């Protein structure tokens, strides 16, 4: 009898012993929602193609990353609004030189950890899709072709992101997102990033350190969780959703290092399988 008791107690302890880390839950304050409107359009909403959220993993100590950055900048110059670049400085090869500002942040690491691992740079997620069995695309020479393939696909939603007002003195931004659904949509999330360009920080380029290297589209902060927050589960065709938010940049940048004139807001739609449906970007101060 005692053996049986010990057996069950032991088993219970074994089952209970493993403490879990659990999924990512965001316990930080989200952006403030000022407007939240939904209506059904009386005229059919036209079909649109996807835009591409291009999350390029980079690092200041990554000797080949300037090659990746160059491809990204060329794609942006060619494709314009349909291409939404975000340069993600996760920990790997990204420790800053000297007194340079640190381009790394917790959101970059969260993205790399949750969909990575990211052990090679330069590399990129193209709409976070698994293409050819891999999500992390590592050869910059292939990026343009993969982006073109993605741009040719239809999206069930069109995103229009506008700056309603930006107060440089107070460092606050009010922005509006309009989601226009041309087809019934599966369950999905919407996410927002803050990115910044024209950041000068030393970069290893081949075997040379370039102390005047200009970093573009650097992920500063994920305003929502990197997987976004739920928009809904049963949104039908011709639905239009309008939301307005306001953020105080100082809530995220207490040292006031970020330059509002060089910053963008990025918005994206994420499906439950982690794929990005489409994305868009707007300069805070054009």
């Amino acid at each position, binding site marked *: 009898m005692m053996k049986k008791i010990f057996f*069950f107690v032991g088993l219970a302890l074994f089952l209970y012993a493993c403490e879990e880390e659990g999924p990512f839950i965001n316990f930080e304050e989200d952006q403030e929602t000022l407007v939240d409107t939904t209506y059904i359009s009386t005229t059919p909403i036209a079909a649109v193609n996807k835009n591409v959220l291009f999350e390029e993993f980079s690092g200041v100590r990554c000797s080949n990353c300037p090659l990746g950055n160059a491809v990204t900048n060329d794609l942006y110059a060619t494709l314009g609004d349909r291409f939404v670049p975000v340069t993600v400085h996760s920990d790997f090869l990204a420790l800053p030189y000297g007194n340079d500002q640190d381009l790394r942040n917790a959101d970059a690491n969260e993205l790399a950890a949750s969909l990575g691992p990211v052990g090679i740079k330069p590399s990129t997620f193209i709409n976070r899709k698994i293409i050819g069995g891999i999500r992390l695309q590592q050869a910059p020479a292939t990026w343009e072709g993969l982006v073109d393939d993605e741009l040719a696909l239809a999206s069930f939603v069109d995103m229009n992101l506008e700056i309603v007002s930006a107060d440089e003195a107070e460092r606050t931004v009010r922005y509006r997102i309009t989601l226009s659904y041309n087809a019934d949509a599966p369950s999905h999330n919407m996410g927002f990033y803050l990115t910044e360009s024209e950041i000068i920080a030393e970069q290893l380029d081949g075997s040379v350190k370039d102390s005047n290297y200009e970093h573009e589209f650097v992920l500063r902060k994920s305003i929502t969780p990197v997987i976004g927050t739920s928009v809904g589960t049963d949104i039908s065709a011709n639905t239009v959703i309008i939301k307005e938010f306001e953020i105080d940049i100082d809530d995220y940048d207490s040292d006031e290092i970020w330059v509002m004139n060089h910053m963008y807001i990025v918005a994206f739609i994420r499906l439950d399988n982690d794929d990005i449906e489409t994305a868009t970007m707007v300069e805070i101060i054009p």
Partner: protein
Amino acid sequence: MKKLFTIAIFLIAIWPTVFAQGYISGDLELRNDYYVKDSTIGASGTNHYDDLKSSADSWLSLNYTNEDWGFRTGVRLDMFLNSRFHNPNDDAYTDFGVGRWFIEKDFHKLTLTGGHFYDQFGSGITFRAFENRFLGIDNAIFGVRAKYEFNDNWFAKAFVGVRKNRLSFYKPIIKGINAEGYIPLGDKVSLTPGAAIVNRTIDEESMSIIANVINSYELADRFVPKYNTYLFSLYNRLNVGNFTWFIEGAFKTREAINDPLNRSVVDPLFVVYADKPGNIVYTSLTYSKKGFGITGQFKRTDNFQFRTSPEDNETLINGALNFIPPTNRQNSLRLPARYQPASQEIEETAFSLDGTFTPKKGITFNFSFSEIHRNTIDLETYAADNLFREIYFDNEWKISKKVKSLLGIQFVQYNQEFYEGPANLPTDVQVFSPFIELTYKIDRKKSIRFEGQYQSAQRDFGQWLYALVEFNVAPKFSLSVSDMWNFKPGPNKSSKNEHYYSVYTSYTEGPHRFFISYVRQVEGIVCTGGICRLEPAFNGVRAGLNTSF
């Protein structure tokens, strides 16, 4: 090709040897519905009535048992063609394939099972895998199970697997272990103790969806959901002479549970997850002797939801991994069975008292009293807070060798909004149902049976009359005609005074039974053993075949 030929020769060679030592058994159940649109009773608006017009469901089982080898195996072909069997309110569902297969072998005291299996621990509170075709439930576990008998009185069993979902599987993984024994303590005293541990691990995809929803909550309501939840239970049956006392207590570690009772607080369309542990206690005490029996039951449930996942598509009868026994009486007569409470997972305090008394041969009195409350009971508002109350009394009287009767009365108080969902339903439907059943035996084989029932449910459908006449020629033939007449609809119902009639006939030849019926059926809650589902209105023809071999 050579290999295939060798295998074929081998199988042909051993076939007579294998099957000479065992036996094959099986059964077939076939149901066929034909839909006739009748918008006056709500039998319309689905693709069955508009376009498809018919559906068929069938289950064909074939089992092989070899007792000498301690070997059992079986396969069941399930077929659902334009089916509305699993969810009558949904669009047609079509699929067919192997609904169950298993192999089982005894190795001395050890029995190993692989494939789909049904099982339960204790009263089913921590784990129950079962099939109830009437409600569209097939909760088989697909995995492996081992059972070891230490001796004649003690055994332990353990399993790991996934729960069946129609012809596929839910992704979360279920593990469990259970030990049970029998301890005789003299001629009239014995114990049957048991213990069980069950673990469920949610899959990444489901957890991603749950985490997304939680991330959309206000900061104060967010929590980190658990992948793993564990259930522990202890139970015992004590027999002392004419008394039997069963008690089971179970505890569940905290996890994200889907609390439908709180939906209206936030958003009626939005899943409300709460991070809570759960517990339950269920007990029954029975005294039984010749001519007299009485049973008292008590149950308290607190956040004891245990499903494959708390996601919104895994509610009601979907994804359930356990079974919480009901304490109220399970009625079978047509009108008295209309208001049945489903066992609650989130909170329920329930008790009942059932008795039977036979003062002399041929006369039996049955009574039942049961109540169900939420867990917080305020004595000042006790009656108003009641979720369900039933007072039932009947008398069975064998008047002569040819005539027997059943005469009874039922009173029910039913919180329809709580049990059926929409917020505008009444919270205190008062139901009064007297009934009579008479059976006249014409000769040794022929008999005629009559049922007459009345029901008053003013805050729901209003007043009903029900009558049935059934003619039987045992054991082959049965014919019945019935009508359920809503002769005075309640003020909340827009329906006219509708008749819901049916004609049913069946023919039985040995193990084969064929039936065909015309049915005009009102919508209502259908329950079996505390598990309920809303059955929509139906109008049409039903035919079927049951056979075994």
